[in-house]
């Protein structure tokens, strides 16, 4: 059930607008530093914006612009993720990546990219010839011309990470307000009063982590924004899990100015993913796929890994990057208004979130607030959902498997429907458990799920009917 609106008297040190991966990481950081935090999210569930569909790669930042804020945040975020993952029960699949050149032109750019990687502190990149690469990745097409390895690019689970950041914040005292859109607000010289669709929220500092709506929220609260979001869509096709025997590394193309290009990699859930595209669009909400693009991605996947031709596409999706005209993140502090805008976290936010949170807390330090960090913070563990983790179905008392393709148990589903971060929708339940995400896309389990989730979602999956009517 969605959380109740806060008492009108209640007063927070920090209001974080937006529960994407960035807002979740910021809420965690500030809570662990002792601030009283409220997270305000307009959707029925968290991770409903840019963070709902990405590639799930924990980037080293090897190809980020040298000296950029993005590069620093990725490096810091990457380190902290690996530091805390075991305590929070987060996954990592240490695949490493290969940057592959398919044309002469691309081959010519490999050296410069390796230079850039070294300048970014990623100094273990290694130039590889076709034979070496194909010995390592025998499934690759023989049209390959060369490449280099980036051994510390990894695969992580894009959903448990933010859930667990926010859960840790909540278990240490933060509040979450869902279905609450920030509409307006005012700063009286010492504190903010935010008008949301579920009432007013008072806080001394506001952090705008509204992702695809970052500029809108700036405009609502500051009456101006220093950046304009230009949504850039990325579509994906996902191949059946059985295809995962075809590769071991993350297969990256040589990036261009606007995109990292079409990646082929495993997912945390054991599938093979091909994507994303990079398509500018107006809509900040509609992450639609289209047939031609999906078919082109499928063909591209087969060009790179010919063996994919024998496997079914089992899922398709699209995500929207909160891009701007600028290359770098748009993180702007406004000390006079005790306001920080965390915008334009376009294509590396999953990797950088923890680093961004530190950076934002440093900026906040200049606002002069002092907090007492909790002495013994809680470290809750979320249920593991990555394929390579020990999941619920392996344990006694799991109450039986409901989603057969993804082996999601009734106990896990019940857990995801309860607690401070209870799923508010079927997509939310998917992100917590993987239910219906598999090769059958709900063929076997939707009936059961309609029953289990009855009364839990704002929009029910199905309604009872009178068969005599």
């Amino acid at each position, binding site marked *: 059930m969605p959380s109740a609106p806060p008492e009108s008297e209640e007063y927070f040190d920090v209001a974080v607008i937006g529960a994407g991966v960035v807002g979740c990481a910021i809420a965690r950081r500030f809570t662990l530093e002792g601030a009283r935090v409220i997270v305000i999210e307009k959707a029925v569930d968290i991770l409903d914006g840019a963070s709902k569909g990405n590639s799930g790669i924990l980037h080293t930042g090897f190809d980020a612009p040298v000296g950029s804020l993005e590069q620093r945040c990725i490096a810091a975020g990457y380190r902290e993720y690996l530091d805390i993952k075991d305590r929070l029960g987060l996954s990592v699949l240490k695949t490493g990546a290969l940057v592959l050149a398919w044309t002469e032109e691309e081959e010519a750019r490999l050296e410069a990219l390796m230079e850039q990687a070294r300048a970014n502190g990623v100094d273990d990149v290694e130039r590889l010839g076709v034979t070496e690469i194909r010995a390592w990745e025998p499934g690759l097409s023989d049209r390959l011309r060369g490449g280099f390895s980036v051994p510390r690019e990894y695969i992580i689970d894009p959903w448990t990470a933010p859930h667990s950041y926010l859960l840790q914040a909540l278990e240490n005292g933060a509040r979450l307000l869902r279905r609450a859109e920030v509409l307006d607000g005012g700063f009286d010289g010492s504190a903010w009063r935010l008008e949301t669709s579920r009432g007013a929220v008072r806080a001394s500092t506001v952090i705008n982590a509204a992702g695809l709506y970052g500029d809108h929220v700036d405009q609502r609260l500051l009456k101006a924004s220093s950046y304009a979001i230009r949504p850039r869509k990325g579509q994906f096709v996902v191949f059946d899990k059985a295809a995962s025997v075809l590769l071991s590394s993350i297969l990256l193309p040589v990036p261009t100015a606007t995109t990292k290009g079409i990646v082929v990699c495993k997912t945390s859930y054991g599938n093979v993913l091909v994507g994303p595209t990079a398509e500018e669009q107006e809509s900040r909400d509609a992450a639609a796929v289209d047939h031609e693009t999906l078919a082109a991605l499928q063909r591209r996947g087969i060009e790179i890994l010919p063996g994919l031709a024998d496997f079914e596409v089992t899922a398709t999706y699209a995500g929207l990057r909160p891009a701007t005209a600028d290359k770098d993140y748009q993180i702007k502090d406004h000390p006079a208004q005790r306001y920080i805008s965390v915008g334009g976290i376009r294509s590396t936010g999953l990797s950088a979130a923890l680093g961004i949170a530190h950076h934002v807390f440093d900026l906040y330090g200049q606002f002069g607030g002092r907090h007492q960090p909790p002495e013994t913070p809680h470290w809750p563990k979320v249920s593991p959902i990555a394929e390579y983790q020990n999941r619920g179905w392996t344990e006694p008392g799991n109450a039986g498997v409901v989603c057969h393709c993804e082996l999601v148990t009734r106990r896990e589903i019940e857990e995801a429907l309860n607690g401070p971060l209870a799923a508010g929708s079927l997509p939310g339940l998917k992100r917590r458990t993987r239910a219906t995400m598999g090769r059958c896309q709900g*063929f076997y389990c939707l*009936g059961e799920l309609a029953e289990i989730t009855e009364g839990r979602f704002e929009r029910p999956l199905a309604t009872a009917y009178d068969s005599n009517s």
Partner: protein
Amino acid sequence: MTAIPEHAGGPPGACDVAIVGGGPAGLGAALRLKDLGIEAIVLDREAEAGGIPRHCGHYPFGMREFHRILKGPDYARRLVQAAKQAGVAIFTQTSVVALDPGPCLAVTTPDGRAEIRAKRVLLSTGVRERSRAGRLVGGQRPWGVLSTGALQSMVYLKGRRPFERPVIVGSELVSFSAILTCRHAGIRPVAMVEANDRVTAWWFAAGLPRLTGVPLHLNSRVLRVVGDQRVEAVELQDGAGASRLIEADGVIFSGQFLPEATLPRAAGLTIDPGSGGPAVDQYGRCSDPAVFAAGNLLRPVETAGWSWQEGVFAADRIAASLAGQLSERQGAIEMRVHGDAAIKFVLPQRLALPVLPGAMRNLQLRAKRPFHGTLSVRQNGRTLWSGRQSGRPERRILLPLAPIAEKAVPGTIEIDLQEEF
């Protein structure tokens, strides 16, 4: 409906025959094995055995098995009852998660993991329908996009309906099953959409008065599902490339069946890309001869009665195999479909010589598209069999196996089609 495990204590660690999947094929096999005095256990991941017919709340099921016409759920109950009465041990809520060499099955139950060693394994895990994703249909991801199977389980098992005015994509038998399911729940489909110029299950549809009132759109392809939270419309494109919107609150992607072949595929058994199921010989043996397959896992798609019959035959062959009567002594033949191939697959994919009595009686073929012509079965330039045939997608084509097997020698057999236009 919470399940009471039918056998307290969970499945045994070892058995003679382990049957994975308690649908018509698996239950047919179990009962027959019991009759032959061989101990078999049935493992099914659902809370109830019975397979797909459990949620096909309509006729006609049961002619072969019970010599009467039953609705799916009654038929499924009877199959389960017959097996239980004969003393077959059925373990429900038991998902087989891996097939390891041995053969050894890795399973999970509400009590966690377990292992079952078996002398022989029968895989009878059935089929599912191809999802929206597998068809690369565009649009956002609103709620209301389902397969027939999911709709049926909501309607017949849970008494719920997910929408009121869906579009049905496909015109196979199962698409008509979707119409019947809708009618049962007071759902009114607004369109049936078929990419070809003719209803796939035309022989069936011909008997229905004007498709029970659902407007039919031939030569039409679903481009896009429209809607954000809920389905609002479906965009169709016709043969001439023109597109139009049909308002609807749901979409049923029906048919385009795919064998549920995850286990044999992950186990590294040979999979036939044409059928999507494990490649078998004329005894239904997979590339691991201790593993057999029967029912719709073998191919998309046959009726429940056919699948049941395959299960019964599989039981006889498993018995023969346990008695050491199926060994390959004189080599093997690979079956190959030749040329541009209007033919999608041939089953069995392999012949183990000699072809003993008790083998499959027919080669089963399927067409990708309509054809007329002469089918010939050739080896080393010799014609083993030939005959005039016509075919349509999703219709059974059977060629007699005995005359072919009689003349065949180890090597490859080619199946060729001379089309007449």
